[in-house]
């Protein structure tokens, strides 16, 4: 009853093409924004910030990038971990090798190098499609894993292959407290999130989706597959690269190539599919699902066990956790194959009709 757009008429295309055309949505988003920027840093304790919100924000950003490539442009990528790694290591090298390199510049440069790699590994996509393309991206993944382990120049000749950065600061403002780290990452997420949203609802986004849905038809209306695909690879790997930099610099502080292994790539892909392919919002949902659910289960199951008086071993919890996780993935897919974002919008549609069933 309350969630209706009745009476909200759009008199201009500008008004109609707002990201959230419905007033209630806008209010909701505003509230969310305030909570995210003010509420969480104030209220959340260190654990929540460090273990949940910071990874959530960074991985949302990465998932956003992956979604552009996979969800919007339809090019399945299992190499996102590699692009994160390139972002992180390139940023690291820029940061430690060039004196006085500002943090943000280093991160953006990381993104830039990830873009170069993305373009390179995007070239096969002009010929290879679908799952076959996934192999190309896996080649990128394994190659990068190997390169960062083996080429010691990338790790500034650290003997263990593990690198670290510390004492981050942004124009004199130290980024060491969890809250400041969180806000720093959130800033990236908001800026890139908005830009990505603008891209996908604009001409480039339509090109990507057109290529995804029907490439021959897209070519016939004048879209060049090469330009569309490579731009998707570029934009996606830039964002993923920056996320990689943040993951290394801000979240981990010190990392080894395994931080960006194939598992990370899979994780990002799951986020996109579970959250909703081709939906910016879906990236957030997906990241939340994949980041928070396991942690939640991990803490909740023993508590539940205690409640009924059985001590559950961590192994049993870990196994139960992945079982429940797997079952939930399947369950959500059955309820809504197009991901959580779609589930959300169907929910909204129902709410619009409420209290009538249809």
């Amino acid at each position: 009853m309350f969630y209706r757009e009745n009476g909200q008429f759009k008199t201009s295309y500008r008004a109609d093409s707002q990201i959230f055309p419905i007033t209630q949505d806008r209010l909701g988003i505003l509230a969310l924004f305030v909570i995210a920027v003010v509420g969480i840093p104030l209220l959340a304790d260190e654990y929540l910030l460090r273990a949940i919100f910071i990874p959530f924000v960074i991985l949302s950003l990465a998932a956003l990038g992956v979604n552009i490539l996979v969800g919007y442009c339809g090019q399945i990528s299992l190499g996102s971990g590699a692009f994160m790694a390139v972002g992180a290591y390139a940023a690291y090298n820029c940061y430690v090798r060039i004196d006085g390199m500002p943090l943000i510049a280093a991160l953006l440069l990381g993104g830039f190098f990830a873009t170069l790699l993305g373009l390179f590994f995007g070239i096969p996509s002009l010929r290879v499609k679908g799952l076959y393309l996934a192999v190309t991206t896996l080649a990128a993944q394994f190659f990068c894993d190997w390169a960062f382990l083996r080429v010691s120049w990338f790790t500034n000749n650290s003997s263990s292959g593990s690198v670290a950065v510390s004492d981050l600061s942004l124009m004199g403002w130290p980024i060491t407290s969890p809250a400041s780290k969180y806000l720093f990452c959130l800033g990236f997420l908001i800026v890139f999130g908005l830009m990505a949203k603008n891209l996908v609802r604009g001409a480039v986004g339509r090109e990507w989706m057109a290529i995804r849905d029907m490439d021959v038809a897209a070519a016939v209306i004048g879209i060049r597959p090469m330009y569309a695909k490579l731009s998707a690879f570029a934009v996606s790997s830039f964002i993923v690269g920056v996320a990689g930099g943040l993951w290394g610099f801000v979240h981990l502080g010190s990392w080894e190539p395994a931080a960006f292994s194939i598992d990370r790539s899979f994780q990002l892909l799951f986020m996109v599919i579970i959250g909703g392919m081709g939906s910016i919002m879906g990236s957030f949902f997906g990241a939340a699902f994949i980041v928070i659910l396991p942690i939640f289960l991990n803490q909740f199951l023993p508590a539940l066990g205690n409640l009924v008086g059985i001590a559950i071993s961590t192994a049993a919890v870990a196994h139960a956790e992945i079982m429940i996780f797997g079952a939930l993935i399947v369950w959500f897919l059955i309820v809504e194959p197009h991901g959580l974002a779609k589930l959300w919008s169907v929910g909204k549609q129902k709410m619009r009709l409420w209290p009538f069933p249809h």
Partner: protein
Amino acid sequence: MEKPDIANDIVLNVNGIEVIYNHVILVLKGVSLQVPQGRIVAILGGNGAGKTTTLRAVSNLLQGERGNVTKGSIELRGERIENLSPADLVQRGVVQVMEGRHCFAHLTIEENLLTGGYTLKSKAEVAVNLEKVYNYFPRLKTRRTSQAAYTSGGEQQMCAIGRALMASPSMVLLDEPSMGLAPQIVEEVFNIVKDLNQKEKVTFLLAEQNTNMALKYADYGYIMESGRVVMDGAARDLANNEDVKEFYLGVGGGERKSFKDVKSYKRRKRWLA
């Protein structure tokens, strides 16, 4: 043909069904129709009226579209069939020709047809049916070794129809069989329908936009409009109905108007809301 009154003459009885897609989109709002044994019944109606949805509901192909029958009942020869699988229905002789061809892209035309005979036990019957289909559509024979994806639209349509006939069905649900076919093939298809109907007593329920043809060959017709049946009657009566003539046959006012001369102001007639 009169409205059938003997209950057990009715093969298919659709009773007030509602269909909802995706839990929110209500498409059929209480559709009822009956198909008597050995007859040809046509569903007519504009784009989006719900013809395809009705056929999908009958053949139980709704699930794949995330659609659900939420009200009403569907009976085949007195047996409730809403919960059967499509394969069960084929076992009971009900086969649907899907709108939009849906040939198996990677299979050759012949393989497509052979797959159509999947439910048949005897190899001989498959061979006979294959010969029959090739007779109906000689064009398919010349293209038998092509992968279906690489045949023309019309060839695919023939393939889809032929594939359904391979199962020796007792009842066929035809969704826009004439779409994309050249005129003489359309004629041919309807002749096949008539032929099967008369010789092999196959019952047909067809959704068709080519109203002209449909009413010429059908015994009985239902006209649908935004998810409801708004008119039904014997085909002959419908064909003579002034409204039907004007809006579905394009011969309002007695004679055929050139497509060029039709004006584009809102002329659409709506029976209901």
